[in-house]
């Protein structure tokens, strides 16, 4: 990863727009143990299945926190049914950066956390 990419992710890491928790939201966590990233994604979903708000919390490197923040930013306002079909490649598009094999786990942890949140959002997926 070159300096330009890293600076961009560090800026998001230092000032994430969507860091926090949603107390009555649907949440899902994932971790990337070899790297030491633990991300929880919180979703506030309205009765129509639209994501009103999304936040992330946890401990992670600049890349994992950036991935989570960009993911939350993207999914706000979208339908949970659509969002739950997102995969690793979708996050890569959001990042505009393809991680190396050693950093793929840092990116994947957010999408894994989202999928775990989706498992608890069954009523919105029917």
């Amino acid at each position, binding site marked *: *990863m070159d300096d330009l990419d890293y600076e961009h992710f*560090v800026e998001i890491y230092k000032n994430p727009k969507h860091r926090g928790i949603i107390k009555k939201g649907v949440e899902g966590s994932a971790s990337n143990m*070899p*790297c*030491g990233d633990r991300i929880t994604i919180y979703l506030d979903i309205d009765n129509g299945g639209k994501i009103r708000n999304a936040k992330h919390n946890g401990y*992670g*490197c600049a*890349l994992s926190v950036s991935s989570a923040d960009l993911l939350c930013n993207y999914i706000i306002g979208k339908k949970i049914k659509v969002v739950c079909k997102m995969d690793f490649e979708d996050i890569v598009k959001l990042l505009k950066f393809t991680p190396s094999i050693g950093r793929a786990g840092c990116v994947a942890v957010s999408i894994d956390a989202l999928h775990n949140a989706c498992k608890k959002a069954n009523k919105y997926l029917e």
Partner: protein
Amino acid sequence: MDYRDDFPILKKYHYLDSAATSLKPVQVVEAEMEYYHEYPANVHRGVYRMSERATEMYECAREKVASLYGSKPQEVIFTRNTTESLNLLAYTLGKKFLKKGDVVLITGMEHHSNLVPWLMLKEQIGIKLEYVELNGAELDYENLSEKIESRKPKVVSFVHASNVLGTVNDAQKILKLAKSSGALTIMDCAQSAPHIQVDFSKLGVDYMAFSGHKLLGPTGIGVLIGREDRLEDLPPFMGGGSMIKVVERQSFEPAELPQKFEAGTPNIAGAIGLGAAIDYLEKVGFVEVERVEKELLSYILKRASELDYIKVYSNKNVKNAVGIFSFNVDGVHPHDVSALLDESNVCIRAGHHCAQPLHKTLGVEYTARASLYFYNTKEDIDTFFEGLERVRKMFSL
């Protein structure tokens, strides 16, 4: 001394991850290549000259290990690595000597390879796993005494030098206490055998394990040294070719030591490479290895003490440590530290270093770790700190 001709990779990288695996000098690589090019036969099988040469070189490597570490050749078992050596012990001791409720005592600074096999045994047969607690970066020796006296362990298995703290534990003190209570003793020497003189017979430990790839040797070759009588007491670990004397349809007789524990075709090239590694290490000498490491460790600690954004977890008592510097940069994930240092070709490790319980004791999720060997220089350290300065600027610390 400039080792770059023997370790060409040093011309490009500032390699500070020797605790994960050491660099290999060209002499080791050439020894392995020579085996594959000149005499690539299997060992202990053929009677043609090429096979006999392979056997001779393989056994010569065993003798070199025995000589450097104070044991007899038949006490030296080649395995894949420290982890396999320790698993062999846990498995075979579990099969023959340990039963439900027996206590195995380890320390709070163990690598997973001297922890997980005992946890597996706990699940399989119900042994109790107990810990000697820490006192800062050192072992709590009062707690050690108390645990041995009150818990009466059947096995005391401890790390000689911690891969996170760098602390070299007082092996003689631990062994004296353990043996006086009748316990079997095991030492994980993965981080000590490459860096300090370890004399198996003088120590009087029952078993010790280490990895070839951490002492300039190839990956895939490790060592278990055990007292001859203690190894003979153990049942075989793996079954198959080489480890047998006689096989009938319904029975078998295991081979003598060391073949008893070397089933199948071994890592022949790896062992020969390890032999070449030991030749190299002996030429450098442990006195020089220790001198360089302690000098550089002192220098790292001095430079780190001048920075207010670094927290150090490893042992600051250089006299009692191998060259390991574990740290965190305040507010920065160790993975980011490592990735940014990589941009200056500085190689360090970030994570839990296969010591999750120790990190929990230290009160931290993960750490970054720079580890030294005799081929490192002051320039490596200076570049390391230049990299940390970049981290500080980028994260606005």
